[in-house]
């Protein structure tokens, strides 16, 4: 099809619906994971300081809280990496397909 379609028609297109559904799902799943990760960390600070204050090893000084904090930073970045990888490989291909079809 070469003629341009209206937004309303594109919204009804099964490929567009599929693309929007998948994107919403991955965005919200990752958002919720990030919220759980960060507010889980905040909850430990708020309600369970002794847990974070445990020593990692006998004779050492480093507490469990340190790798948990650093891990929160690293894992947040990993989440952005997962999203970027998904969007660059899967999502962009779906977008291309829809655009070709509707002649955007």
């Amino acid at each position: 099809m070469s003629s341009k379609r209206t937004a309303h028609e594109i919204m009804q297109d099964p490929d567009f619906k599929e693309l929007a559904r998948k994107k919403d799902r991955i965005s919200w799943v990752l958002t919720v994971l990030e919220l759980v990760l960060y507010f889980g960390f905040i909850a430990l600070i708020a309600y369970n300081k002794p847990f974070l204050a445990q020593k990692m090893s006998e004779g050492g000084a480093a507490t469990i809280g340190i790798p948990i904090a650093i891990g929160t930073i690293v894992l947040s970045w990993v989440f952005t990496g997962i999203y970027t990888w998904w969007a660059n490989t899967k999502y962009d291909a779906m977008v291309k397909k829809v655009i070709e079809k509707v002649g955007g």
Partner: protein
Amino acid sequence: MHQTIIGQANPVAIMFFVLFVLTTLGITYWAAKRTRTTKDFYAAGRSITGFQNGLALAGDYMSAASFLGIAGLVSTKGYDGLIYSVGWLVGWPIIMFLIAEPLRNLGKYTFADVVAFRLNQRPIRAAAAAGSLVVVLTYLIAQMVGAGTLIKLMFGLPFELAVAVTGTLMICYVIFGGMIATTWVQIIKACLLLGGATLLVILTLNEFGFSYAELFKRASATPLGQKFLEPGALISSPLEAFSLGLALMFGTAGLPHILMRFYTVPDAKAARTSVFYATGFIGYFYILTVTIGFGAAVLVGQKVIMGIDAGGNMAGPLLAEALGGNIFLGFLSAVAFATILAVVSGLTLAGASALSHDLYVGVIRRGVAAEKEEVKVAKIATIGLGICAILLGILFKGKNVAFLVGLTFAIAASANFPALLMSIMWKKFTTAGAVTSIYVGLISATVLIVLSPTVWVDIVHKEDVAAVQAQIKTIDAAAAAADAKIADLQKQLGSKAAIAAAVQEKDQLAEQKKAAGAAMPKAIFPMKNPGIFSMGAAFLIGILVSLMSRDKAAEEKFEGEKVRTYVGIGAE
């Protein structure tokens, strides 16, 4: 005693700084020839790559507060400093999953473009410009006062001169080079900052045989002991912890100078790639600052750090001096100055675009203005904002401005973020809902912070607090004297009546102390971090008002917005 040259004019620092200024002014000259249209001025012609924008985003975001402040906080408070470094990072994934791509696909130059996409242009642009400007101005004051203080400490320049130099350079970058020059200033600054911090961490770890276990072991031998590595008293109640967390996380996603950067890349793919790089650079940098903080506590010592600056802000530079001598200190001081300069330039450009693109063109000229005229207004706005920033910086000299950073994030999270998110996601979001959400978020965050202990007690009633404290001190001294008298009388077996009189006198003093304590000023709003209430109110009002009003035109445009959000058809 630890020897430091901090506080004196340092020729090495000045040399590095002059080198940075010359390079960036050269780039500005080059950029000026490429800055003609509004697209060039606000969005660098949309020619920045994802990787470059990732560095520039990191440059815009890593302020002196994060470079010097977090290292300082970790070096003096230990683990509690980590809470901030985590909080300042976690907003980035939210930006990526919910904001970056819709923003790029729907908008042109400012985040108000997105909020106003389906809604009534003029009221939305006026409200969004107000939200942007308050965020920009509060953050600018904090940065300017920080700049004056730091430059005074590191270069030995007078405060006013330092603020004026910062303001003048920032105006030059923005009016001549627009977004192109600003972007390259950010990129150079980000590279210098990441490189400098990496080198400092390598030198630090070298002192501990590259063993973190050893670093933490020695950190636990500092005066605070093992407590130094445990969460402490910085965050007092669970509600404060969640409220601070919300403001840090969603405030990041509502900063106008950060949101604006997504328009500098060609498409949504580059926008998401840039967040991936930015999150990596910023996260890496925060991990470095934590190491620097603990390293400084061990190798320099808290007494020395707090002796130079009570807030611990000189921990990083002191560590650099201890490990790399005068040259490394000079280099890092120049990097700190460059850091502030880059951040204020980004802020000024964001403020100028709110004034020209949203207020002047969107509200006053009802969306119709020639490009030349818009760029001219943006340049005039830049000069105006720059002069404002210099004057406010001087006005706030010596004042405690730490609360301004908290205020900035609370307002960004309450005024900007809820309206932006709902305008992208929610079909039934109306003009009335958006406008009330923005103003309620803006006003409630500001008012609650003014009424909070940080401002109401520590700043507004600073003298009353000091008076009450002095009164209590006098009473305590009298009570101690009365105690001594009682003990004396008892020892000398004085008359019962005399002892009873002394005891009565002591009881009276205790009553007086209680009365004096009751007169101590109390905060009207008890929390230091109002984010949970102001952001909650902004969402709630936005939803309620939208449900009560109906915006048929906006609902009809939602399908077009949705298609553009997801596949980018029609994006600029």
